[in-house]
């Protein structure tokens, strides 16, 4: 398919990108890796009037250690995150998640900022950002992840706001991301992230609602000393997932429970 016509501008700095976004107005979109946006445009499901290409802003492509924090630039590609020794040491769960995004082509082009700003319910990074209380830094402000993801494909970002980096806490205790999908390159039908941190568990669910879900009931049960299989029964508490061709709502809820148990067990080195 052929996208509808659009304006194109390449920004060389965040300021320029923001100015361009203001200039083009609400129908402008930021182009980072393009692996979600361009397919939508080809199907004419998205018809932005303008694309502001941020691929030339080199300072957005970075991984920085900052005390007990890890700052990932918005333009950092999945492949870079996956291969980064710093990420592997300080936040190995992020490296693991990055290694399982899409296929090689997607991992070579797709970016941290793109996934966060696109806010697909099946995106993997948003779940991690949410459960680790990460912060999303823009050219204007810093937004806690829990306030960032508003709805399906909807975030707290303003029209001329550009994600510049995502700041995660360091966490290198037991961890696992279980991504259930039929094909290796697919999005998660359901994904579960488990990270042990400061003595407690952080459990997050992907693609069981319009935004990522933190399974607080599971965390609480674990905190109270429940066994993983008992605690995992709470993973579907309060969930009302939409069914699709891959999975019915009941199956998604069932997967949330099963995969939560597996994520915790595997994080602790059990099968």
């Amino acid at each position, binding site marked *: *398919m*052929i996208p*509808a*016509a659009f304006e194109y501008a390449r920004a060389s700095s965040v300021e320029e990108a923001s100015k361009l976004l203001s200039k083009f107005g609400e129908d402008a979109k930021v182009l980072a890796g393009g692996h979600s946006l361009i397919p939508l445009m080809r*199907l*004419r499901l998205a018809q932005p009037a303008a694309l502001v290409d941020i691929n030339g802003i080199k300072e957005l492509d970075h991984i920085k250690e900052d005390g007990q924090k890890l700052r990932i630039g918005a333009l950092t590609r999945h492949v870079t995150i996956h291969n980064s020794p710093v990420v592997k040491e300080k936040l190995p769960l992020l490296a693991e998640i990055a290694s399982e995004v899409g*296929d090689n082509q997607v991992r070579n082009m797709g970016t941290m900022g793109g996934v966060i700003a696109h806010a697909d319910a099946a995106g993997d990074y948003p779940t991690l950002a949410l459960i680790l209380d990460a912060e999303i830094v823009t050219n204007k402000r810093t937004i806690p992840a829990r306030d960032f993801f508003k709805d399906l494909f909807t975030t707290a970002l303003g029209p001329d706001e550009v994600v510049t980096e995502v700041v995660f806490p360091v966490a290198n205790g037991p961890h696992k991301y279980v991504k*259930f999908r*039929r*094909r*290796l*390159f697919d999005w998660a039908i359901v994904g579960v992230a488990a990270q042990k941190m400061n003595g407690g568990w952080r459990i997050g669910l992907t693609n069981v609602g319009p935004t990522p879900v933190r399974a607080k009931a599971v965390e609480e049960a674990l905190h109270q000393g429940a066994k993983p299989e008992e605690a995992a029964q709470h993973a579907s508490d309060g969930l009302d997932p939409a069914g699709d*061709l*891959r*999975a*019915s709502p009941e*199956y998604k809820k*069932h*997967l949330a429970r*099963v995969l939560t148990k597996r994520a915790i067990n595997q994080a602790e080195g059990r099968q």
Partner: protein
Amino acid sequence: MAVTQLVGSKIHRREDPRLITGHGHYVDDFTRQGTAFAAFVRSPYAHARVKSIDITDASKAPGVVGVYTARDFKGLLAGTHPAAPAFVAEKKYVPERFPIAEKEVTYQGEIVAAVLAENKSQAADAANMIQVDYEDLPAVMDLEKALEKGSPKAHLDGPDNVCWDFTYTGPEITEAAFKEADVVVTQRVLQNRLAPVPMEPRGVIADYEGFDQKLTIWMSSQNPHFIRLFVSGALGLKESQVRVISPDVGGGFGSKISPYPEDYLVPALSKISERPVKWTETRSESIQNATHGRGQFYDCEVAAKKDGTLLGMRVVQYVDVGAYHGTFGAFQPVACLMAGGAYKWKGISARTIGVLTNRVPTDPYRGAGRPEATHLVERMVDLVALELKMDPVEIRRKNFIQPKDFPFTQNFGLVVDSGDYDKALDKALDLVGYKDLVKKQAELRKQGRYMGIGFSTWIELCGFGPSAATAPATGGIALVESAQVRVTPTGSVIVYTGTHSHGQGHETTFPQIVADQLGVPYESVELRHGDTAEGTAFGYGTYGSRSLAVGGVAISRATGKVIDKGKKLAAHMLEAAEEDVVFEHGSFHVKGSPDKAKAFGEVAFASYGMNLPEGMEQGLEAVAYFDPPNLVWPFGTHIAVVEIDAETGSPLLTKYVAVDDCGNIINPMIVDGQIHGGIVQAIAQALYEEVVYDDETGQLRTGTMIDYMLPSANEIPPILLDKTITPSPTNELGVKGIGEAGTIAASAAVINAICDALSPLGIKHVDMPATPDKLWKMMKEAGK
């Protein structure tokens, strides 16, 4: 002199360096100077009345050459979409089909308007500006409801939704068998609708030259000669005025056999606009509009004795025809004729019902009817075994047609030419380690794990096909095959075949045969195909695993004719009697005097000279047509091993073994590749793929590769292959087709393995695709 033995050698595919480095020539790689680009406006509704079409804005859009609706094509295109009788001699109702809808649209994707513009983007933009006013009508989606009295109709003007209702053999044929039966098993078996998804979507370029009244069409097709026949007829041109060129074709799987609306509209647009016109299908258009495969269900009953002897089968096939009769859509009822599989039956009653719905038409898809037959009979045999608590291997052995029985006339009068089914089964059991697997299964079951072993002892009929059988099926043209072998003065050889490769490797295998037969270097033999202006008068295309078993034999016979002429000339040159001349290893010599010889090249050169025997014409070339006396009958055994995740229902294929018999083999590497590809396609049907439409609105829900679950290499287990070789007695090469075998065999093996895995839960049957969600629900229900 070295003896060449190319036939049987793993020669690397000659076409691969070109294709895998991006140097192939597909239709989209060509553009004529002055080309206008076409885009089509398609119905978003499954069924609707077209009230009006407003082209005002689109006509004024930048770069637009013209906007056209049905009216513009009325005087230009005649006739209706061809619908071959195939295996159903009588049809009840075949809706008229004009390539562009005027008053009523009957499937999502049906064309209502066309745009020509200076470039692709402008054409796409203008197409989006056309305003069509539709009145939504009820969509016919469910086959059983469609057959009920008072059902909405897929076509407003149709009498009902029955395209055909044909009984091959009535219930009386199986009365005795069912009376005698100790057990009767009954099952409905579904065949999920599949999109063909060739790597290269379709594409058409047409250049109508008004002064000469010549039309040249470049298109991605499996059979360019038939396209020439259909398109010339519709446009009122002589076949001789039309040339169809089908360059490299990136897959077809049956979806590029029949003509499509665009195949008529693009040439007509070239005529109207007096410009070359190009259209390349998008991936979304391909999933939506390329003819789909399968889309059927079967109601089946099998009668058997306590000892496992199969007695009788009653089968009713329901085919989702789609909104129009696909040109070869009625080929799919061959499933009825093949429903007996590799076994002996006292009687089989078979009836096929073709139902019109508001979906895109179905047509042959790799295997076409034979995968359905295999899936059905292999499922039913397993159900009988389960009922009788018999080993699935034993029930198969007990009922196999035996080697001494061949040629074997089966229940529908088809003559199975050869086979040794036990041999393939034995080899496969060995290869998979059956005894150990059964032990392992027992252990895993104790641990609450669900492991299953599934069999498919498949047979196939292919190589269409004897003129007596196929001429009535096509409506007149016998499916034989033609070849022309031309030898140049310097001894190089050009072979023309009427088949056309869309991935089969003909440029490699056919020259292997010719080079061996002529004793010339492989490199000096070229294969040409896919252009109606070259080679023989008519070619029949590639489908139904026919190219080698029919086309290859024609090539071999044309080569034989060249040798015969060469022998006459060599005898003259050697001053010997023709009957004393022997042709061996590329050289003609006098019997008993190997030194008194003329090399093939010398004879070729001499054939263009002046010193010829009296009455002999210059040149060295020959044409042959091969009309096979029978079909050919490959067979084999496939075994799948699966484990199903007890918690998630996710099926994991852990092992796959296939032992296939396609008779003599020209190139084992290409045979292995064909089997691999076929198996993967059937695993895909069994576990992943399904075209899903909304039950109510008829909207396609699997319109992109995100939702249409084509698996990738990651999802496929290692496939272990072996073979037996039982040469076909039907042709002198002893060959059978192998292009569809994997697809015909594999879905049954996978689903049988899943059913075996779940049998401890009392689950007897699982339909395709066996998705985790579906299996989890079944397991949950069964566990209650």
